[in-house]
């Protein structure tokens, strides 16, 4: 029982990371109707930025964090202008291919600059964690869960209770109508990309002390996050969060009770099962294309 609780805690922590990245997927998907296959790379780049600022240069953790987040905002903007915007009027296929190109480019540019050795990023807190009854609560996992809750709450408030949030929602639901109502659609999409890059960046910085900081971390996280969005129902915000958490838990239990080397295969298995039996996910419902 103790082990189960411990695994549940760890699983929720990892799942929160998937949920954050999945949220980035969903936001961009809703704004542009394309999946950004470089979403995981945002996490990877942010983690490397943290390594540069906090480890290599030895700057304070909070300052490094702010700089890394600023860097991600910039990357999100450049990404929008270079990868999405020129293709905005084409079908989704060229955009997918373009974001995959961007993903390869980002991962390998970091590889060229930083070499293949995985890096270590220390956690935010000096205290490793606290014992809470039978469960050991690792401080970094606690932080991840807390930040995820805070970000989800912020996002809810932002989209439901601010004018900018409403405009973003309008853009994601009907770009043409939004434009006719005077909403600057291009700027809204820009904001979405910047916000998604920041979201992915925060996830990367939070998870980096748990995993090694490596070139592969982006694609691994992205794959899991995408599986999470399918489990939750594609394009659904609550679904992405619950799907992420569920996947983290499934994977942690799978690794503990079934097999460690094939840990990464569980996400794929769950993905296939959902695609085969419940392709709309737990919450999603897509409307048929209008003929």
């Amino acid at each position, binding site marked *: 029982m103790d082990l189960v609780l411990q695994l549940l805690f760890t699983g929720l922590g990892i799942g929160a990371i998937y949920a954050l990245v999945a949220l980035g997927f969903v936001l961009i998907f809703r704004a542009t109707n394309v*999946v950004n296959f470089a979403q995981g790379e945002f996490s990877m780049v942010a983690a490397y930025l943290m390594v540069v600022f906090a480890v290599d240069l030895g700057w304070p953790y909070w300052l490094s964090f702010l700089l890394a987040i600023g860097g991600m905002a910039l990357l999100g903007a450049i990404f929008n202008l270079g990868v999405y915007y020129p293709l905005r009027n084409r079908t989704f296929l060229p955009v997918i*291919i*373009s974001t995959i190109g961007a993903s390869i480019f980002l991962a390998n540019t970091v590889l060229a600059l930083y070499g293949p050795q995985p890096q270590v990023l220390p956690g935010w807190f000096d205290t490793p964690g606290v014992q809470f009854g039978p469960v050991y609560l690792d401080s970094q996992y606690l932080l991840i869960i807390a930040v995820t809750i805070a970000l989800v709450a912020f996002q809810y408030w932002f989209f439901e209770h601010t004018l900018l949030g409403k405009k973003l929602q309008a853009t994601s639901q009907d770009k043409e109508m939004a434009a006719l109502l005077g909403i600057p659609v291009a700027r809204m999409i820009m904001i979405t990309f910047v916000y998604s890059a920041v979201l992915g960046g925060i996830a990367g910085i939070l998870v980096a002390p748990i995993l090694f900081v490596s070139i592969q971390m982006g694609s691994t996280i992205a794959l899991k996050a995408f599986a999470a969005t399918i489990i939750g129902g594609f394009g659904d915000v609550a679904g992405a969060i619950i799907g992420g958490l569920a996947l983290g838990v499934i994977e942690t239990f799978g690794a503990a009770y079934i097999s460690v080397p094939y840990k990464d*295969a569980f996400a794929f298995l769950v993905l296939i099962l959902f695609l*085969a039996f419940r392709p709309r996910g737990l919450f999603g419902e897509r409307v048929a294309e209008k003929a």
Partner: protein
Amino acid sequence: MSAARAAARAASGLFGSVVGHGLYAILAITAVGCAATVKTDGYFANILMQAATYAIAVFGLSVVLGLCGQINLAQAAFFALGAYAVGLGTADYHIPFWICLAAGMAIAFASGGLLGLSTLRLGGHYLAMVTISFQQILTVVLLNAVWLTHGPDGVSSIKRPDLFAQGQAYLALAVAVLAITGYVVWRLANTRLGRAMRAVRDNEIAASAAGIDVYRTKVAAFAICAALGGLGGGLFAGGFAYVSPDQFAFSDSIVFLTMALLGGVASPVGSVIGTGLLILIPEWLRFLKSVPGLYLAIYGLAVIFIVVFMSDGIWGFIAGMFRRPATAPARPARSLVLKPADSGAPIALEVRRLAKYFGGLKAVDGVDLTVRRGGVHALIGPNGSGKTTMLNVVSGLYRPTAGRILVDGVDATALSAHRRTIAGLGRTFQNIRLFRSMTALENVVIGAERDGNTQVEDGHAATVERARAALEFVGLGDRYGDLVTSFSYGHQRLIEIARALAGNPTVLLLDEPAAGLNSSEKKFLHDLLDKIAAQGLTILIIDHDMTLVAGVARHLTVLNFGRRIADGDTVDVLRQPDVVAAYLGAQ
């Protein structure tokens, strides 16, 4: 129809123009001859071997991506399946090379098919992510299932067939296989299956309305792509006698994709150009490989640049400059034969208590509709009365909430859209849905190829003949070779009608055909509908233009708020007070 006949129909079109084939044969024989005789050093021979085997896999991508518009980010995994089948089969289990090669192709074909079956009902994003997953899982398995795959050590001392044991002979074999697969892929575009793939790529809804099984077509494209990957991989394993997991990573799938995109996915020529360039260029830029990552970073950037600035690839760009103008028809088209009014039971289409709810909205709420054979039946009603929803339910795009639909007396309620087309429904769309990359004739040929079209059972020539007749019938016979995008809006509507007519439907469903037409185009449409009706074909038409409706329709059904408020002879119905009220408002 027998399977052999179906296969013959699917393959008809493989043999087209004589000049093109002659050129291709000469080129292919020269290439194989050179590969077999010209002495090269080992380094260059290796590059050629790699290029030839890779290009076969890239042909696969030109099928799935170029013809069918679906993405595959796991071609290196399918390549690996072929390579490991030949590697493990010949080295560990001493099975003859040819059997291993065939088995590798079969395994790749089956995995591609299964992957497609699980995903292709959904959008392209799912396919992209699932193929990435498959690629990564396969790499994990190749590395960890050491008992089978030797893990990271890879498989060595892979055998070749005895006849081709010598390096030069084997290279000639690879080039010959390349030439043959290239030929098949080249001609595939103009077969029935190839046209179906292109139709799916251009417009899935229109493809299913033309009687194409969209899902099966996509799965077929995907499985063919995977099988070509397996074939290339098997030849690769024999060529290099050694394979290891790191040769077939995700990055290699991206390399395959880049090769296809750079050359141009529309043609196997593009595949060869792209593959050749992307194997030669890195050899010239070997120094880049000294910095890990730099080389792939440039690949990634190249992908973005190609997609943004050169979406058709190198060959697409070159071929675009030499697009041949259509030649005038040598002989006039025959006249179009449609289903006469006495071709069956008196009721052609029957709808009973049909309902379609969207959540709480009752778009269609228990409507009965009986369309008599040989007449023009109009379905009218104010905006939002449920007309188009009704048509979409009848043609199978929406599932009904309740009710039954009988086409020609046969219950079609459970059939998918393309099966209803096969059962005898033909339709057009309110917002025109043509296959936009194709010519007018190709669009109409796809309509004529409907399974169950009794008018075209004598093979491809008869199909083309019927398509030309249908275009002639709508007055566009002399422009058959033009791309549909070069036609005016009104003419595009006519092509859509011709596409539906070519399939020889039992009932023709027209969804607001007059919408957006000017007065002379409307006049032409009116005359065309009279001409169709004169042959006795049953028509169910939706339109707002009362002059048109009152002029062509004998029978009228009026909907309002999803319910039938009137039904009967046109003249009588138009006099009913509630119909007048629904249209003009109560007095």
